[in-house]
């Protein structure tokens, strides 16, 4: 089976102070039809930039190398009509802050139906009916009334449901969800995430799910990839991240997560601060913060190697495997 989305050797540079600086380095992954892949990382790790590159929403001046292929089309080479078709039927994006991402001066109904009516020539009445059905599906009561209201009259959680409905309304094949619940409060987060997950599965839509929440990614995604400083550090089945991390960075992230059944004297944090891609040292980007680093790690960026259950960018993985797991913890801080 060929994948719906294939990213191969994607490198993106952005102009910073007159120089093209890397923000993504050699990103490669595939996503099958109906599959969900989590992309996890700290701020600045490049996870949102990856989604933007796939949605062709990179800021002006960005330069891309490598290949993004969607259903056989080369996404980076699409232009004009091809790009519009890709956005009309191929991908739909869900952004982090629904209040900023929905035009505040137009009615909710206009927002929902705009793409259908403008791009596909669906009659306004039919579009309204379909939008109301979907609003109902995402759990919004009295959809017709909501559609007559303006975004400021809806809560953040409701607006994000509206965003999800708008994304599903075009029957996309891939949803790029860029931290869709980060701006919501915790109880709303769970609801909205559950709705997105259910509807996506029902319709067989693929999803690239960007988040900084390892646990959330594991909960809704088949596979999870971990990013650091513009690099993919590891990728494997979500269920195994906890028990069998394939990279010291993932292990450190898992350990930094507080366990609610234990009272901690102090939360375990990863020493140092996250680096952006262009600050990264010549060797392994995580090296300076890694408890297992040795001089050889600083020589060159380790390649992303296939292992039995996934892929890893740690050159010491064969020695470390099995010692980094979640509760074999403490060990990491030696």
């Amino acid at each position, binding site marked *: 089976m060929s994948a719906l989305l294939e990213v191969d050797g994607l490198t993106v540079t952005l102009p910073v102070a007159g120089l093209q600086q890397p923000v993504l380095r050699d990103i490669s992954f595939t996503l099958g039809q109906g599959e969900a892949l989590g992309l996890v990382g700290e701020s600045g790790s490049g996870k949102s930039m990856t989604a933007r590159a796939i949605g062709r929403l990179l800021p002006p001046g960005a330069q891309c190398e490598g290949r993004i292929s969607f259903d056989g089309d080369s996404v980076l080479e699409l232009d004009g009509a091809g790009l519009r078709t890709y956005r009309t039927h191929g991908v739909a994006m869900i952004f982090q802050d629904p209040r*900023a991402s929905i035009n505040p001066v137009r009615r909710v109904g206009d927002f929902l139906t705009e793409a259908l009516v403008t*791009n596909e020539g669906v009659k306004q009445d039919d579009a309204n009916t379909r939008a109301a059905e979907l609003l109902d599906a995402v759990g919004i009561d009295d959809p017709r009334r909501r559609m007559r209201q303006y975004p400021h009259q809806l809560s953040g959680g409701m607006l994000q449901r509206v965003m999800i409905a708008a994304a599903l309304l075009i029957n996309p094949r891939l949803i790029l969800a860029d931290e869709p619940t980060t701006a919501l409060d915790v109880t709303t987060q769970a609801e909205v995430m559950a709705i997105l997950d259910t509807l996506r599965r029902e319709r067989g839509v693929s999803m690239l799910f960007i988040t900084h929440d390892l646990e959330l990614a594991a909960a809704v995604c088949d596979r999870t990839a971990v990013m650091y400083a513009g690099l993919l550090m590891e990728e494997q089945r979500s269920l195994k991240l906890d028990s069998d991390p394939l990279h010291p960075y993932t292990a450190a992230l898992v350990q930094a997560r507080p366990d609610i059944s234990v009272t901690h004297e102090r939360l375990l944090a990863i020493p140092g601060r996250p680096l952006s891609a262009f600050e990264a040292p010549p060797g392994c980007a995580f090296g300076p913060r890694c408890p297992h680093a040795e001089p050889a790690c600083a020589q060159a960026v380790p390649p992303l190697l296939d292992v039995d259950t996934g892929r890893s960018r740690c050159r010491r993985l064969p020695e470390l495997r099995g010692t980094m797991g979640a509760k074999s913890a403490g060990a990491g801080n030696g």
Partner: protein
Amino acid sequence: MSLGRFLLGRLIALVVTLLLASLAVYGALYLAPGTPLSFLTRGRTVTPEELAAIKAQYHLDEGFLSQYGHWVAGVLHGDFGTSILGKAPVLSLLGGRAFNTFMLVAFASIIILIIGLTVGITAGLKRGWVDRSLMVGATGAMAVPAFVAAIVLVLIFAVNLHWFPVFGAGDSLGDRLYHLVLPGIALALASVAYVARLTRAAVRTEADSDHVQTAVSRGLPRGAVISRHVLRNAMIPIVTVAGLTIGSLIAGAVVIEQVFQLNGLGSYLVQAVGQKDFPVVQAIVLILVAVFIVLNTVVDVLYAVLDPRISAGRQSA
């Protein structure tokens, strides 16, 4: 709650502001040194009959509020009193002049809206050298005071090239418009640049906003993104700035009318102040203030129409 209630509120505010403004305009009579009577007759030899007429016109025998009441009542009936100098009803002296000023301001406003918005929107949407050169031009134009622009325009286009008349208002409608070209441009120049710069900033802000990115990500045609999302939202600050700028033209018209000897309210105001013809000064100031306040209210109302967040109550659920 509704737009209707918002409009009612704005209307009440408008009336209150107008009343306060009229009180200030009338009260100026008492702020001047000496008694009102000596102020009204200053520098003139007046016969006892004229003195009596002035006293009667201003009801100087009565209290201040009562005087003010008489005056306001008169104004509401279209009676601004009698010019001390012209010995004619003020209203009849103002009519033609008000029309001249209106034409000048309207002409300048059209220039500001058409050129200012075009330049601003173009610069906002076309990044790079188009944007940079338009904005350098606008910054330069903004720094030129109206009277300098007037003199330079007259020198080049009237004196040297003979394309336009040096001064005067013209007779027929076409001739009037022809006479208004140079004054209109001189009056509009700095405001065109100002509106263009603000329009550019508003368009740029919206073009870079998250909701426009959403619209792009949905595959909408560029034209739809620009008209429905960029310009539609940028209109909100633009209307405010353009409205207030046009209001300020009323003051700028005073200088331009002097330079081009257009017989309008502005030049008449300067003349009436010089001759201490208080009823005329009072009437013109009140009219200018009223126009400005009404324009402000129109801007407020437009603002509410354009931005549902202003008028609609927050009935979020």
